[in-house]
């Protein structure tokens, strides 16, 4: 390597190193702060804790409603993603293979809905939920979330189903498969990579959502983890280590999913953008 090329490579590595530090520092900050006492945080902002303590986590798990909120978020995430995936898979299959009257219009509408921001829908949905008595219920929030996930899910699955070879379907038809059996036994297993991607991306979205969670679940014991965290801060605003411990707990599921399934995230994002 020439001297110039070597200098260039070094420069790029330095740039990437800087970028890595900037990307990772906030996570480091959350981690080390959560292990400090409130007193230590005041004089030791930077360094790892000199007197590491798990007191904040004990407080989060035993002294607060966080465990309850964690379970609430888990229930809402699992049910929302499960329901929306099934509805979207059936719809996408009908669009890609059923070619029913108007399937093109339905698909184009779906693409249009991708850009509709949920904040526009919140007020009428809130009034509706109040009137039908679904405010402060998991069902109401799950119904709303699942609907919001459908356009992206259908879009992604239709594009995937269209790449499946025709012969698969012909062979199954000859065997006399009913459409439901065909979808469940043949198409879904073939679509497993796309489905995992979809489930991971959607689950992280539901888990992280704040606006709707704040407004539609206003009872203390019904809060999701993110809404709870955001309100937690108001109450303990001077206890930074405690709130960082809570934040770490809130980050952890998505972080673990990312560490073990990075490719699914990356595939999910790039899948949304091209045909």
């Amino acid at each position: 390597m020439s001297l110039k090329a070597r200098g260039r490579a070094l420069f790029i590595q330095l740039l990437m190193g800087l970028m890595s530090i900037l990307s990772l520092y906030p996570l480091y900050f959350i981690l080390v702060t959560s292990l400090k006492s409130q007193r230590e945080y005041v004089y030791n902002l930077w360094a790892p804790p000199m007197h590491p303590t798990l007191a904040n986590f004990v407080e989060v798990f035993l002294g607060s409603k966080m465990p309850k909120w964690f379970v609430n978020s888990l229930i809402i995430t699992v049910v929302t993603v499960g329901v929306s995936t099934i509805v979207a898979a059936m719809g996408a299959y009908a669009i890609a293979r059923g070619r029913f009257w108007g399937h093109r219009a339905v698909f184009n509408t779906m693409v249009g809905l991708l850009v509709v921001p949920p904040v526009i829908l919140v007020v009428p949905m809130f009034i509706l939920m109040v009137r039908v008595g679904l405010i402060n219920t998991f069902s109401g929030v799950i119904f709303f979330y699942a609907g919001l996930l459908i356009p992206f899910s259908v879009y992604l699955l239709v594009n995937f189903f269209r790449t499946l070879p025709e012969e698969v379907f012909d062979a199954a038809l000859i065997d006399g498969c009913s459409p439901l059996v065909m979808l469940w036994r043949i198409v879904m297993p073939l679509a497993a990579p796309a489905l995992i991607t979809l489930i991971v991306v959607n689950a992280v979205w539901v888990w992280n959502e704040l606006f709707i969670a704040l407004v539609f679940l206003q009872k203390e014991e019904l809060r999701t983890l993110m809404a709870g965290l955001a309100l937690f801060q108001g109450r303990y605003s001077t206890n930074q280590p405690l709130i960082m411990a809570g934040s770490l707990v809130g980050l952890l599921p998505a972080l673990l999913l990312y560490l073990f399934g990075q490719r699914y995230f990356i595939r999910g994002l790039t899948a949304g953008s091209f045909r």
Partner: protein
Amino acid sequence: MPVKQPISPGRRRFRQPLWPYLFALPMVLWLLAVFGYPMVKVVQYSFQVVGGKTVRWVGLANYKFILRDPIFWKSLSNNAFLLLAVPILLALSLLFAILLFERIRGWRFYRAVVFLPYVLAPTAVGLAFGYMYQYNGVLNTLLRHLGVAGADWLGKASLVMPSVMSVIIWQQLGFGVVLFLARLMSVPAELYEAARIDGANWWQEHRHITIPQLRLAIEFFAVVEVITMLSWVFNYVYVMTAGGPGFASHVLEYYIYKNAFAFRAMGVASAVAVMLLAVTMVLVVFYFRLRNASQAAEE
């Protein structure tokens, strides 16, 4: 091999199976309930005063109210300010994607690291940045060590929006990098080889190959980020600044939130939502026009 019999149009309609309709039905009903109904109602509410059980038509009063409300204009200008993040994001993600594409040592690691912020909950991240930007926080301590005076990043009206924007850029950058890198990997290698044989330098190579090849991805990313800046920043504002100091960091979503759920002015909130929807629609239609026009020009 059996030859498929041509089916007469009339017969085909008769034999059109029922199952696709049944399969599509739950999806269509769900979308009508979650998108269709609210999009109609939000327009209706924007002309009404919505009380507990009563509604009263008030014509354009809600719109007149927001157009006279300085907080609305502040919110709108803050969203407009955040749009400045889009070109910054485009430039930075392109740069990092191109550098990673050169397969520098450790590129997979760097890709994983730069994308990581994107999956973290904005609420938790916002809380952490809130502390780091505090007057006695990490950032000012660092600056003091470097001999630079710190600032009240979130407490000063002139600094609060740039501070919020920095967090958004921090979180969104990885999305662009991963998107562009994935697209770069499918650019035919011959294009670059040919350019190198012709003696193109780094800048020319990317100016004349990378950017045209990535145009669709760049446009897509720009549209997604514009929508993000207009209608996906509630999290950061709510957690980091609560719209303050004063109204300095109000954005349209926060304005809708405040009006609808703190002041119970559902009609006013709906009028803002309608305007936001209109702006989004105009941008999207504009984008598709642009795209179709340039595609037509190429053909």
